[in-house]
């Protein structure tokens, strides 16, 4: 009698668990492959984002104290000053080079637009993707700051990524070196067009025909055609060009202009109409 009751209880518990498991699996299957956050994801991101933000602030303070006071104070200050000056000069130089290149070819055309005229917002990286194959970061800006999905993210050195998912105060950025990222670009010198895809540490330039001119050291910039990044933003430099005997296209490797391992602060370009929406 007691065994029967115990067995009945076990069967009930098993049935309940089975139903719950099926429901949960249905929920998971319904969301597998989606890239956009739903309400529980946003809620969890809000909670854990605060902890990440706190830890990043504390480690930032500790790092600043160590770098600023314990290790070579004077040398560090002069180094920082010189780096800031160099960054400004590099940004100016690139702007002038791009302006000259565009002006030479497009002086006869009407309707030349200015790039990077949209308002922008700074953001700080508070967390990074711990997985081996995906390259994403979490920043401390969200929908409450006016950020929208698909907005481009850049630094003074060049393009960084685009906003992938967001919650009210935090957002996830897909970096351009992620294998799932693809951006329309051109070669600054020859205006050859192509698409760069990330490979985890750098880029590969695709769909460049073999008879198109491109060489090592060429600067790659955004073309503006994808509708996400404004035109003329730095992407990187060509490091290797390989022409295989088969196929129509060249195999081109590009070194990003941005050092993704040293990223701390980003700029979000607040474009009003993002094609990614």
């Amino acid at each position: 009698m007691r065994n029967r009751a115990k067995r009945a209880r076990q069967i009930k518990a098993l049935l309940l668990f089975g139903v719950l498991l099926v429901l949960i699996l249905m929920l998971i299957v319904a969301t597998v492959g989606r890239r956009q956050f739903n309400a529980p994801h946003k809620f969890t991101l809000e909670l854990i984002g605060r902890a990440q933000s706190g830890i990043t602030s504390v480690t930032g303070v500790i790092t600043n104290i160590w770098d600023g006071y314990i290790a070579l104070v004077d040398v560090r200050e002069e180094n920082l000053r010189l780096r800031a000056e160099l960054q400004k000069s590099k940004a100016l130089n690139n702007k002038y080079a791009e302006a000259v290149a565009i002006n030479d070819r497009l002086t006869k055309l009407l309707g030349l637009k200015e790039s990077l005229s949209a308002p922008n917002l700074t953001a700080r990286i508070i967390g990074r993707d711990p997985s081996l194959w995906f390259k994403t970061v979490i920043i401390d800006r969200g929908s409450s700051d006016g950020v929208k999905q698909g907005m481009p993210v850049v630094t003074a050195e060049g393009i960084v990524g685009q906003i992938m998912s967001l919650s009210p105060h935090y957002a996830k950025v897909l970096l351009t070196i992620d294998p799932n990222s693809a951006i329309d670009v051109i070669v600054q010198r020859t205006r050859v067009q192509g698409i760069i895809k990330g490979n985890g540490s750098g880029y590969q330039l695709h769909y460049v025909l073999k008879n198109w001119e491109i060489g090592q050291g060429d600067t790659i910039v955004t073309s503006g055609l994808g509708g996400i990044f404004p035109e003329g933003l730095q992407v990187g430099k060509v490091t290797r060009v390989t022409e295989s005997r088969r196929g129509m296209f060249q195999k081109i490797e590009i070194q990003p202009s941005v050092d993704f391992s040293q990223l701390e602060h980003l700029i979000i370009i607040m474009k009003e109409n993002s094609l990614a929406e």
Partner: protein
Amino acid sequence: MLIFFFLMLGATLLTIQTTIFTMLPPWMGNPDLLFLLIVFIAIRFDIFPGALLALLFGLMTDIYAGIFLGLYPVVYLLLYFLLQGMSRLLVIDETVHQAPLAATSYLFTSSGIFIFATILAPDASLDWSWRNIILETLILAVIAIPFYHFCAKLQELVQGGLKNRTFLRPKTGNRFRV
């Protein structure tokens, strides 16, 4: 109480992995402590609470790792039930088995994530780097045993409760004093 405590522990480990561990030099890798916690839960917890924890950890990891939602819950639940089944048939919760268990589980999970991610985005050329995989596997195998001891102590503490701890004067060597 136990589930809530380990849920908080998992959230803390995930926060540390996505902030402090990303600053480590490349040769130290990025130890996936949350993964070790899931393996610990699979071999030590009952099936229902453990499955709930594995699912919640997978959902949390989805937010911070990867770009496909649902990938980590599926893989972690598969791993969880596989280890649960194995723990009922084999003696895998012994100390001597913990390091190889962590290593093989990590290889299984990484393969699963790589395969699913490749299926979901065939245009993206994901790079399977044996060097990185072996480095992470070795690091996890080394830290598995002390980490499991730590988790076991935490589990005893939470289940036993502080009220059951007695604070007695340590006994002296002389037991024959009247």
